[in-house]
């Protein structure tokens, strides 16, 4: 006697099973296939596109959007969202630049020994991010305010604070200890690219293989059931926001390092790119869905298109038009994918 519907349909044949597994694999990694296809097209049709330098540049370019997209993914998977990441990144960058910058609006703090600037500035950036993340998380969890509203507010006041702090002036002249990460290479690959890959590897592992990661998916899928199963929902959601803020802080620190200071209003527009990458990567706004490998491919895809447009010498607003179209295409593709899954898997 079996309770389950255990119909031995055609799917039970091993060959069919293999086909199904292959189809599932293709659907799960569709963004990577699209990315490879796009890169192949660019390589064929755009002269001088296929060079190691350009490919490395694509990854390096992706660093800031890529890292804040991880935080956005964490909160989306947990059924929330974090719109504040761009402003948090800018605020972290501005804080570091104002403290250590020697030119423009910079305060010119010089530590002894000079290398101290590295850990101190990093701690500042991460601290700013964690603090705003904690504030967002607490407002969402404790006061039960919609995450969209809370983080939209943080996005707005964060931006305002950045400009208020800089007084509209840019900062330049960061100490060498701070510049290191942006200008050094390891095994011929820019350090920024390593950091990006390391962040993705660490957080992908966390999501897929640790109880905390699994609980985020559960909370995003069914928060009531998670609470009933004894999962500390409030704590985990708050932690997701703190991690998102901290990652944005890291991105800000890297941005300051990269630009050797901060423009008056750094990183503007990156929220929308991160959002696009996350959606293209298959993270659902409904919560509980998506993997970081897809997001990484999404980030690289956007960056590749941007680079291709640059190399072709087209005006940059084409990038935005294409990216906007891509987001819509991604959502439609997601629907089509689900249809295929339902029918064949």
């Amino acid at each position, binding site marked *: *006697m*079996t309770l*389950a519907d255990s119909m031995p349909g055609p799917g*039970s044949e091993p060959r069919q099973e293999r086909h199904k597994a292959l189809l599932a694999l293709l659907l799960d990694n569709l963004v990577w296939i699209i990315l490879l296809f796009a890169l192949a097209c660019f390589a064929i049709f755009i002269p001088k596109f296929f060079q190691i330098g350009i490919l490395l540049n694509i990854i390096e370019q992706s660093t800031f959007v890529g890292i804040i997209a991880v935080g956005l993914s964490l909160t989306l998977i947990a059924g929330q969202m974090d719109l504040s990441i761009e402003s948090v990144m800018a605020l972290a960058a501005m804080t570091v630049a104002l403290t250590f910058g020697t030119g423009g609006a910079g305060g010119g703090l010089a530590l002894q020994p000079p290398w101290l600037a590295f850990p101190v500035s990093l701690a500042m950036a991460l601290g700013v991010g964690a603090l705003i993340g904690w504030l967002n998380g607490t407002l969402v969890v404790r006061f039960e305010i919609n995450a969209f509203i809370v983080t939209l507010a943080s996005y707005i006041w964060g931006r305002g604070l950045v400009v208020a702090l800089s007084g509209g002036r840019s900062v330049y002249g960061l100490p060498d200890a701070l510049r290191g990460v942006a200008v050094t290479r390891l095994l011929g690959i820019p350090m920024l690219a390593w950091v990006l890959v390391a962040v993705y590897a660490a957080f992908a592992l966390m999501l897929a293989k640790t109880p905390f990661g*699994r609980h985020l*998916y559960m909370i995003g899928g*069914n928060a009531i059931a998670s609470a009933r199963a004894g999962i500390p929902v409030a704590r985990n959601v708050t932690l997701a926001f703190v991690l998102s803020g901290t990652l944005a802080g890291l991105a800000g620190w890297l941005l300051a390092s990269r630009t050797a200071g901060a423009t008056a209003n750094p990183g503007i527009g990156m929220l929308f790119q991160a959002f696009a990458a996350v959606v293209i990567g298959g993270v659902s706004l409904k919560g*509980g*869905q998506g993997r970081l490998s897809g997001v990484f491919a999404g980030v690289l895809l956007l960056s590749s298109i941007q680079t291709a447009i640059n190399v072709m010498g087209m005006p940059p607003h084409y990038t935005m038009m294409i990216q906007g179209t891509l987001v819509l295409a991604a959502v439609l593709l997601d629907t089509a994918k689900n249809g295929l899954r339902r029918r064949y898997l």
Partner: protein
Amino acid sequence: MALLELAGIRKSFGAIEALRGVSFAVSAGEVVALLGDNGAGKSTLVKIIAGEERASAGRILFDGAEVAFADQGEAKAAGIETVYQDLSLCTNLDVVANFFMGRELTRRVLGIPFLRDRAMEAETRRALEAGGTRIPRLRTTVEHLSGGQRQAIELNRFVHWGGKLVILDEPFAALGVEQTRRGLETIDRVRARGIGVILITHVMAQAFAVADRIVVLRHGSVVGDLRTDATTPDEVVHLITGGIERIGQPTTTQGEPA
């Protein structure tokens, strides 16, 4: 000895008395159908049993000891749980993840807990087989499973984690005929493993198909506590609607309010 014994349970919400001294018992390996019209006090009663609400008066004995659960967590730890349809599963995750929800097996590497997915899958498979449930692919997300399969997962999960008394609140409300039949079979198997079951249903046929006893609530009181084989659907309907005032004695009289 009874697994669960309710004695003179009362519950008031302001001036409204939802329960007016309810007493009945459930034994291990017994299925008790709880029937009653809307507003008879069924949901309030099961919420009290499952620790979601506190009784205003009365005693609850579980496993021979008096209990007063502060919340659902305590009731669950003691082995009492309400299985709601769909409410207790994350349909975006696979069977294994759901089975181990909140109780994941981990191995520490450098102090970081990592999931032991393979061990969890093996244990899930064993537990489902022991419960007589066959789900071919444990890595399928639950959203692709039928309502009956989902219920089977929840019930097996409950039994596997040491549950002793399960409350099923309208478990077949959304199921078709065939799935309901299978669901009733699952209840049979759960009973055979020595679990006490309180089944709330509106469908007389289901109560008669699976229950050992039928307890009828009306206006917050037990008006009938009958062996299923010693009564008829007609009689029960009359009890529910008030056509018959009261049949049978409450299984316990101790702790009746003065």
